[in-house]
């Protein structure tokens, strides 16, 4: 059966215009091709609906397509920034219009630095995350210990969203109340579609920078494996992942209190850092810069071991690390590295300050004398 003939039979078949003999011919052709038969039948049975869809596509003169092409791609980026602000403004308007004062939320203002960082992150293809809906316990068991959390029952979390970033991606996210959360790599956050009227609660494992929408009647609470952070309109950084198995909270601006898993709660002031561990809670004043520099696109290393630096860089760039000599691990460094730069210039920058050789061989970073 030649192509031309079959093509005609298919078309006739789709439109219901086959004679009995033609129907037989087509049937025997399709019976040998089950997948094609399936496609054919599903189309034939829904031509009007499919046509409805088809006719919506707008064609344009090709020159316009070319002109539009460049404009469209730049516009996309601007829309992201504009809509963050617009979205916050809208939420604010809704809050004022529809709710009583428990819902008066003042959205955070993103600094020019942060907005710039968002753009750079998108340009470097670093903005990416997986968002899923929490449908069962499996999905949050690793982040939240139900028994530890008082008053939490499994159902409360159903239909929340879980955002996960991979080892080499980050993600900016705006929550229902206007709070902007910047997730670093390897991080997971669970948050509800809509916050409740008494509290705004999220669950974090990893590292995130929160710019919380101000609302004195609804505290914003971040639960972590080691405790929770309660605050009322502020900017702070939480890191639940580091060697010491603790959660580190650094307050940039505003007012928070931190509460350990065994109930001890203390207030944190700006430029203070709290360490929540399994055996207690401690607070000390710090320079916040190295803890929050990542939020504006920089790795800030202050007296950090080469081992730790390589760990951070290798994950961010998706490479392995090999130390040719163990004692090299303990060399410490001060410096900045831009997050959106390529790996090799960064390695060169580190090498410029020392005799150590750090090179990229294929998939692996090699550190040697």
């Amino acid at each position, binding site marked *: 059966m*030649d*192509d*031309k003939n*079959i*093509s*005609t039979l*298919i*078309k*006739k078949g*789709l*439109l*219901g*215009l086959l004679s009995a003999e033609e129907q037989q011919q087509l049937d025997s052709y399709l019976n040998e*091709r089950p*997948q*094609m038969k*399936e*496609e*054919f039948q*599903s*189309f034939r*049975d*829904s*031509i*009007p*609906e*499919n*046509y409805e*869809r*088809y*006719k*919506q*596509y*707008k*064609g344009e*003169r*090709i*020159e316009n*397509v*070319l002109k539009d*092409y460049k404009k469209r791609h730049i516009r996309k980026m601007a829309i992201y920034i504009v809509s963050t602000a617009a979205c916050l403004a809208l939420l604010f308007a809704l809050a004022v219009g529809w709710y009583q004062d428990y819902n008066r939320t003042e959205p955070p203002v993103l600094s020019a630095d942060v907005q710039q960082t968002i753009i750079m992150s998108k340009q470097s293809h670093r903005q*990416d*995350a*997986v*968002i*899923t*809906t929490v449908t069962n316990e499996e999905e949050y068991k690793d982040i939240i210990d139900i028994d530890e959390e008082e008053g939490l029952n499994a159902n409360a979390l159903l239909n929340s969203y879980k955002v996960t970033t991979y080892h080499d991606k980050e993600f900016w996210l705006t929550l229902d109340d206007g709070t902007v959360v910047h997730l670093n790599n390897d991080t997971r956050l669970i948050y509800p579609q809509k916050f409740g009227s008494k509290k705004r609660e999220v669950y974090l494992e990893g590292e995130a920078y929160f710019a919380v929408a101000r609302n004195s009647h609804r505290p914003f609470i971040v639960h972590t494996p080691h405790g929770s952070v309660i605050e009322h309109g502020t900017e702070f950084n939480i890191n639940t992942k580091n060697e010491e198995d603790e959660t580190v909270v650094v307050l940039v601006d505003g007012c928070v209190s931190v509460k350990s898993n065994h109930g001890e709660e203390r207030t944190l002031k700006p430029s203070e850092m709290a360490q929540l561990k399994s055996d207690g809670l401690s607070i000390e004043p710090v320079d916040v810069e190295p803890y929050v520099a990542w939020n504006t696109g920089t790795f800030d290393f202050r007296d950090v071991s080469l081992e730790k630096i390589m760990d951070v860089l290798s994950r961010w760039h998706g490479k392995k690390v090999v130390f040719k000599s163990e004692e090299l691990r303990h060399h410490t460094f001060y410096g900045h590295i831009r997050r959106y730069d390529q790996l090799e210039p960064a390695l060169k920058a580190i090498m410029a300050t020392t005799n150590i050789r750090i090179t990229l061989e294929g998939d692996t970073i090699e550190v040697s004398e």
Partner: protein
Amino acid sequence: MITNTKDEIRIINQWDNDSLQLLYDDYFKALTFYADRILNSRVEAEDVVQDVFLSVWQAEKDFPSIAMLRSYLYHSVRNQCLNRLKKRKLETVRLEDTQIGHTNISDELGEDELQMEEAIRQVFQAIDALPANQRRVLMLAMQGNSTSEIAESMNIAVGTVKKHKARAIQKLRDQLMPEAFLFLTFFVQ
């Protein structure tokens, strides 16, 4: 619309704006429909197809025949769609009618699939070319409405319905069936 072999020869031999326009007019919607079924997103599908046309235009490749060009277009669209599917992680997928989506996307874009897509493209293009009333009657009939039901919903006489339907079918036959022999030979390799 590509209506004769002269147009086709032009497209293959002379890569200018007009030939690109002809190609675009003929294939844009069908390719978008194809991409939309894979991606379940009209906006993304339109993006993909624009991008593919752009790259075809910029590459200025040589194609020995329309059939090869068509195959290239569908393969490119499909590849871009698959790339987007891989990148696309946000699971806020709108649940569209299941009849619209692809049931499964096999690894290879086979000849059978290409043939199916081309048949669909021609059928839709022919339906597009019908006068509005004839098209409306035809679609209603295909949805299982009886002549009197159609007459009632379109507020016309039963006789008019029959007339529209007959004319629609005749037009479709004329456009799609191989009496126009010369027209179709070019589509066959």
